[in-house]
Every structure is written in C-alpha cells, then in structure tokens.
C-alpha cells in the first residue's frame, strides 16, 4: 500500500482562520455596540459606561477563542485506497466514511480570509439523498490539491 492512511489533523492555519473569525465578530460587536451606546442615550436619555462594550466583546470573544481551539482539534481526515474519512464535532461527534467510488464531484471554495491564510473548504459530493456532501473546512490548500489529485479530479 503506497498511500498514507494515518489521520490528518487540520493545520495551524485552520486554527488561525477560526480565531481570526472570532476576532472579526468581536470587532463587529464592538463597532455596532459602540454606535448603539453613543446613539441610544442621546435618543432616550441615560448613559452606558465606556468600558461596557469592550467587556461585552471580550466576554463573547473569549469563549469563542477557546471554542475555536476545541472545535479545531476535533477535525481529522484521511484518504485511503477505498475511503475518504472525515471526523468532526464537539458535542455531537461524527465520523463520515465515503467510498471513493461513490464520489460524484469535489468542490473547493475559499473566502477572502481563507485565501489570506492559505486554506480552503473541500466538499465531496455523493448521490446520497440525505448527506449530499461531506466537507473538510479550512484544510491547507496543498492538502486539498492532493485530495483532488488522488481522487483523479485534477
């Protein structure tokens, strides 16, 4: 057997992308909250202490930062001669086993943030009526290319 069959974990870039998303969400909360904290008291009276918004942003971003790490550590995948296996999930854990002969096509997508960090999402489509596709989110672009090549789709 020439193909490696060990489980591959997602790389550091995947974790960086996930945490970058958390930071962006926190920044958006900070921005929207700041505008609201400035505008609403002028409208209805009263005041919001200046530190309330950053505290709220950190209160949301802190658990998000930690959760991104936990969730990232649960992702794993391997491509053997017969199967593509994808493991994921924290509260509900799933192991997807897709026979290679059932794969209809493979899609790769990447958003601006993913492009910046050199990762993308690989989605494997089958004709299954319920689980039409299985995705590996934020996989390293090199690995994604390798998957596509080994599936004979490049």
């Amino acid at each position, binding site marked *: 057997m020439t193909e490696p069959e060990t489980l591959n974990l997602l790389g550091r870039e995947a974790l960086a992308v996930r945490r970058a998303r958390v930071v962006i969400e926190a920044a958006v909360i900070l921005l929207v909250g700041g505008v609201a904290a400035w505008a609403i008291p002028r409208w209805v009276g009263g005041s919001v202490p200046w530190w309330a918004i950053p505290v709220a942003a950190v209160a949301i971003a802190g658990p998000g930062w930690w959760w991104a790490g936990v969730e990232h550590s649960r992702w794993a995948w391997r491509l053997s001669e017969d199967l593509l296996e994808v493991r994921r999930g924290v509260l509900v854990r799933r192991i997807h086993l897709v026979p290679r002969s059932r794969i209809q096509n493979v899609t790769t997508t990447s958003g601006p943030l993913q492009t910046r960090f050199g990762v993308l999402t690989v989605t494997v489509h*089958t004709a299954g009526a319920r689980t039409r596709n299985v995705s590996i989110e934020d996989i390293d672009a090199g690995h994604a290319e390798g998957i596509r090549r080994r599936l004979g789709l490049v």
Partner: protein
Amino acid sequence: MATLQDGWHRLHPLTILKELGSLAWALLAALVLDLDFAPVPEQVASTEAVLALAVFGYAVVRYLFTAYRLTDQALELRKGVLVKSFQSMPRDRIQSVGATTSLVGRFVGITTVEVSAADAEDIRLGFVSEPAAASLRSVLAPERARSEEGTTEDEAVPPEQLATLDIGRLLVFGLTETGLIPAAMVFAISIFLAFALGVVAAPLGAASLAAWPVMKTVGLAGFRSWIENDRVHIEAGVLGRRQTESPLERIQTLQVRRPPLRRLFGLETVAIVTGDIAVSSEHAVTAGTVAPLEPIGDWRRLAEALIGRVAIGEPQLERSSPLMIRRTLLRGAAVTLLPAAAAGVLTQLWWVGLLILATGVAIMWVYARARWRVLGWAHDERHLMVRRGVLARRLSVVPVQKVQDVTVRQTFFQRRLGIATVEVDTAGVTLAGSIKAIDLELASAHRLALNLSETAARIALPDGV
C-alpha cells in the same frame, strides 16, 4: 401530435388548457352556463376581454415553444418564451418513468408522463397522447431491455407478476391503515358528544379525519405490480390511473412496513425506494408500494425478484446495546422534568411533580424495553438489514452496492455510555426516515460502518448511483 424538425415533438394541444389552469375552467363554466351576475361597464368588459386574450395568447405561445425529443443518448426538453431553457436527461440516469391519467384524460386520451433521474430535475411532459406516452415509456427503457424487445418471441421473457389487490383485500388494506385508529377514536368521542351535548356537527368533523386513509385506499384500487424487461411496473387507480416503471437496478432500498393493525392480522406492505420522490414519497398514493398486502415474511419472495436473494433474515438481527434503554430513560426524564417541576411549583404540592416525573419515566421504561426488542441490524456482503419502529414497524433492506456514505454519530449522552448510531445514506428519497442502526456498542458501530463502506467501495457502479 405535431412532429417538428430533427425529431422534436410538441405536446398535446390540450396542454394549452392546462397552461391556462383555473382560468380555463372559469372561462369554460362562463361559456357553458352563460353567467351574467351583474351589469359590467363596457370599458371594464373590454379590458377583461383584452386581458383574457393576452393570457390565452401567452399560453398558446408557451405551448408552441415547448417540445421534446428522444435521441440515442438522452431525453431532451426545450421550453420558455422569454427565458429559454433546455434540459437533457441521459437515458442511463433515468430512475423511473411514470404516467398519470385523470378521469377526464381517459375520456380524451391524454396523459402526463414524468421522467425522473437521481439528483436532477424531473421532466414532466403533459399532456401527451396515450400512444405517445406508451412510446415514451418503451423507448425510455434501458439499452439492454430495448435490445431484448428486438429479440424473437421465443427469447422474450414473460412478465413476472408481483402482487395484485382484489376488492376484499383492498378493504382489509383500508381497515388496517394506521390513520384510521385516531380517526375512529375521535369519531367515537364525537358520537358521544353528539348524544350527550347535542353537538350534531362533531361526528362530521371527526369523519373528515378518515379522509386520507380512505383516499389512499381508493387510490390503490385495481393495484397490480409486475416485472418486465428488468423494470418493475406499478399500476393503480380506477378513476384516475397511475402507472410507474423503474429499472430494477435503480432500486435503492426495499422497505417492509408493518403498521400495528396490519401486523395484528399477520400482514405487511412492501415498497421500494428509488432516487425518484414521485415513486418513493409517502404522500403519493402508491408510494413505491409493490405489494400492498402480503402475509408477513412474503417480502423475501419480492426481494428476490427485485434486489436479489437476501441471505440474512430477521432471526439474524443483532440487538442494540442494552445501554440504549438507559439512554431512552435519561431522555424521557429530561423531557418530563420541566413539566413535572412546573406542576409541582404551580400546585404547591411536591408529590404532584414527583408523580408526573415517575409516570413519565415509567412510560419511557416500557417504551425503551419495547424499542430495544424491536431495534436490530444485520448485514452480509450483499445486504444490510435494519429494523425500527415500536408501533409502526419498518424493516429496510439495502443492497450494499447502493450505499453512498456511512456516518457514525455520537451525541453527548451516547459518548458517556460508550454507544453510537450508524447512519447509512443511499440515493433513495423517502420520507419514512433514514436507515439507522441505533445505539450500538462503539466498537460494533465502527466495525459495521467500516465493513459497509469498504464493501461498497469495492463495487463500482457505472454512474455511482
């Protein structure tokens, strides 16, 4: 039926009436009855006439722009006036061909043909004349079947009868429909209300609950199913008639349904699941049914004809982990806890809450035991068999070659108990729930998932379906 250049065919001209829809019927009624409800100002009347003419004109143009043709490789449909569309369905991807003829259609000789493929939009050709529908059905047969049709009479394989439903058994089918149980209960209560409180309309309302089981039963009148040229044919209906045919190789799952009343009489219903919702869906009257009423165990005969001999049987079914009972109890307790606490707080009587909790847990315990006895799974190199359902029991038999992917799923509670559920996906579309082996020991779940997916991987299908 107008034939155009390059083998393109137009639909039946009566399709224009269908395009007009309810407007056509309103116009027809107005013409026949010469309706004149109130004086209409001349200006309004002329505007209405122009609008009606425009709608009619558009329907005619739409009809003229719609055409279909059969090539050696595909069925093609072109349509659209402003936005044009072209749909091509490769013949080897076709899951089923259905024909529906309404009562009026039977008089005028028109029918609607539906052609379905997995993972693609259906092609609906309606109306077409009956000869055109028959030629569509036969020409859309798989290449192998078509070549067989060209063979001599001696070599032709005679049709193999699968099941029929005479009037007596149709009645038994209707009376053993699960929907009748709540309808009968509500009807009994409403009769009591009618006598005790004088609510005369109550029984009428309750009787309407029986409408669906009755409609389903009536829709199965004249049912027959057979296999011909490697295709399963299903035909049912007396007033409006529905015919469906599906290549045997497209059957994704065989389902044996045993609703409580039917089980009581030792009967079962056998259905097929394909990638076509029209064949498989639960709310279509035939719902992929190949044998509406057979003695329990007769599914093996049908399975042999439809998906090949099934070597495993219900006695070989392995049970789920006994820990499943504990999980069901935990779930029951979690669900009952909130209403029990609310009742305790509201009544200020702690024992009321405790009583509700105890009753809930007791009911769940009985249910969990019954469920544990019913749930089961078995598989060999060729088939996977899964049994589910405490009241409405369902046995699913999946050819392993039809497995698309397998998922091992563990919720928080399952992880604590060391059990997991294996979900198997095929290209079959059904509303009757997924194919699951529930609450297996984790090691067994992994073994089952790996065996199934590796076996499926070794079997190459021409188009993966």
